[in-house]
């Protein structure tokens, strides 16, 4: 075959270019350790995610001193956790300087989980679990988008990853608060909060009680992967009760931390009994309170599951 000499030069240059490309990619893959999302995870039944050890327990989990697993469910049209813009779910909060492995799956259609402007980017296919490991050295926020069309609400599917300074990061949650249902105004009462620490090390938690218009802080040490109780004694005669029928309270752990999530806080109401109260009014109040409490209780129980 007759090949012009210039064409031969071009052909050789083209081959060198191709081999060069393959070499640089191999270098990136080997020396820089950029691995591909792959088939290392077992398949999962998309209709039974909650039975899975990871997806029955969504959120951030510590696996080693600076290593975390984040379990995310990407569904039409949110990330759980992640989609915090409309308050649907908590943002994903991780500490600075950590190595984070994301586990993402979908119960419905194909999505993606993509941290904008980074190379954390993976398809999320129902029946498969996508994993990606990344290091977060900078305290900042990253937007998360779904970049695969997933239905008519696709454009609203977004989330947030917050990387916070290490000392502001914690894995505390308020597991339970033991508070009286009703007290007599002017009486002294006690509230006991159970604080869970999911971290792998003992940490001190500042627990805050807001009741009426007063605020009380107390510090409590919580062992690794354990619980501790914080008790508040409140003398209601110190509170400005005016003619209130009830008393709202909120217990928050690490209230000032950017890492405090929905389950870092629990609220409730204590009925105030006064002599003038008649029975009927009380019942009505109770019913109304129950309705108010129910959604809270639900939140708490989901929070505890997580």
């Amino acid at each position: 075959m007759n090949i012009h000499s210039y064409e031969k030069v071009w052909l050789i240059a083209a081959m060198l270019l191709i081999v060069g490309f393959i070499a640089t990619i191999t270098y990136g893959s080997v020396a820089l350790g950029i691995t591909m999302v792959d088939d290392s995870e077992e398949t999962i039944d998309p209709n039974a995610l909650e039975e899975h050890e990871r997806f029955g327990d969504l959120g951030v989990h510590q696996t080693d001193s600076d290593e975390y697993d984040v379990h995310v469910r990407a569904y039409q049209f949110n990330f759980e956790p992640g989609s915090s813009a409309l308050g649907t779910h908590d943002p994903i909060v991780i500490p600075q300087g950590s190595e984070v492995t994301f586990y993402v799956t979908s119960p419905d259609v194909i999505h993606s989980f993509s941290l904008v402007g980074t190379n954390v980017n993976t398809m999320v296919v129902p029946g498969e679990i996508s994993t990606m490991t990344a290091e977060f050295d900078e305290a900042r926020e990253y937007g998360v988008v779904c970049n695969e069309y997933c239905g008519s609400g696709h454009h609203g599917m977004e989330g947030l990853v917050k990387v916070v300074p290490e000392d502001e990061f914690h894995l505390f949650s308020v597991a339970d608060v033991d508070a009286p249902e009703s007290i007599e105004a002017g009486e002294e009462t006690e509230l006991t909060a159970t604080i869970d620490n999911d971290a792998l090390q003992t940490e001190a938690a500042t627990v805050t009680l807001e009741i009426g218009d007063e605020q009380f802080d107390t510090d409590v040490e919580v062992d690794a992967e354990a619980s501790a109780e914080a008790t508040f004694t409140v003398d209601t005669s110190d509170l400005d009760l005016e003619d209130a029928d009830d008393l709202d309270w909120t217990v928050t752990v690490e209230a000032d931390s950017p890492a405090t999530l929905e389950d870092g806080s629990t609220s409730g109401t204590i009925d105030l009994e006064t002599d003038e109260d008649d029975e009927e009014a009380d019942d009505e109040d109770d019913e109304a309170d129950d309705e108010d409490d129910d959604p809270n209780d639900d939140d708490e129980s989901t929070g505890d599951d997580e």
Partner: protein
Amino acid sequence: MSAYIDQFPAEAKVIRSAFYTSFIALALGAAFGLIQTLHRTDIVRVIPSEMYYTVLTAHGVLLVVTFTIFFLVAIFTWAVTTSLDRGVEDIRFTWSWYVLMSLGTLFAAVAILAGFTDRTEMSADVLFTFYAPLQAHPIFYIGLVLFVIGTWLAGADWFRSWWAWKQENPDERIPLPTFMVLTTMIMWYLATLGVATSIIVFLIPWSLGLIDTVNPTLTRTLFWFWGHPVVYFWLMPAYMMWYVMLPKFSGGRLFSDPLARVVFVLFLLLSTPVGIHHQYLDPGIAEGFKFIAMTNTMFLLLPSLLTAFTVVASMEHGARQRGGEGYFGWLGALPWRDPVFAGMALAGLMFAAGGFSGMINAGMNINYLVHNSLWVPGHFHLTVGTAVALTFMAVSYHFIPQVTGRRLASKQIALFQVVLWFIGMTFMSNAMHRGGLLGMPRRTAEPEYDFPFETAIGTVGELNAQIALGGVLLTLSTVLFVANMLITALNDPADDLPSNTIPEPLSGSEDAPLVLDNLKLWTAIAVVLVIFAYSLPLGSIVERGGLFGPGGDAFPMFIEFVEGTVFGLTGDSVSSLVNSPLEWLRAMR
């Protein structure tokens, strides 16, 4: 010495119909494109955002399936009849595939456009990729199948012509244009097996409710089995135009016939075993398979790089025939005022840019940064949206007079139109590429989020302005094109049309080794390469998730995949064979 319509009046009629169908698709697709470009940049939002995806589906399917493929069956028919110098064997058969393709388009279009109205349950808002578990109405899938069968019959028609010609000319080389058509069609037959299996075996029964679930990774992989070669199906006719027509319009001859044959053989071999490079970020596919697809993809650059050389060399030859001199001075001697030449040359220039962004997509690690971002549509608006579409529009200014016998309405407007396309695409695609680097996603109605995109240079507003401006210019260009074609079709007959000839190459087929014409051999090698690249990944996907997906409640189970374990095990070992050196090298560090 006569125009095509004088040589082959019956064939000219079919070709004309195919051209007109493609132009209708182009006009509709462009209208949807305008709605999108203004919607996603938030300049004007005339539709609710949920409807954006109906528009996007229609834009994609009408342009990359209907416009391109109707156009290419027209020029393939022209190429075969002209280069063999014989009409089709049976014009009724030729009409039958045209009708089947039209019917398929109609079915799919009805399903898609029904998404605009609530009066019917029907819709197909599944985009061009129709990834399950997103489900379209059955007639969308049935339409696609009819369309593909139509193209199969069209290929059979051209093979039939060639066989008949071969009986009469047993010792002659396959004429280059026919060779290009046949190799492209073999690639197409091989590639469509993937999408046909996906649709016929899984998606149609599933959309009819005969089976409950499908395996999303499997249907997705079968889609990309076809989804990458289809881009070469669009591109090959454009390459054919660059090889056989561009030298003619430059005033010269093709540089090398043997190299052209080599290029088309390489495309036949390498177009299909690369589809997994669209799935670099898919879970459920081993890294080793991705690495193999990446390597094949890189070698697929070779025929395009060779084409760049041959096309530029042919243009230079033409320019020197016209009196051009100097290292670069010859460029000025090219017929830049001819819309056919100018359009094709500008398309080729943009293809170079699109090729470079494609090389980046192919790099599997850098792909993390750009995967599914606006970068990707930026890339393919340069390739299919310019290299192919602009070449097609430019050669229409030559072909429509040839197949209608009528005078081109306006050469000046034609020249303005091709330049306008080039300018519009420059604005739109550069901004799309840049937006992609910021992480802006593709395929979204409202790329506005609670967090900002961080720009290094410029602003998001400026990018959006460029995208919208580019989109408006492109729409304007399409309007000028379609109007010019419409007026040409109704214009006075011309009696001074150039004759329908293809000049002989400088280095002719006598220089090409005979083995290049051995289509059976190349088909066999192509099949083997596809088996290498795909049997193990497909086997392992089925092994992992089952034929009907990990949901498990498939009904009825009419296929027992007994080889599953065998495939899965071999697949693991081959993948780990590729992977273990990588792992070993990683460990070394």
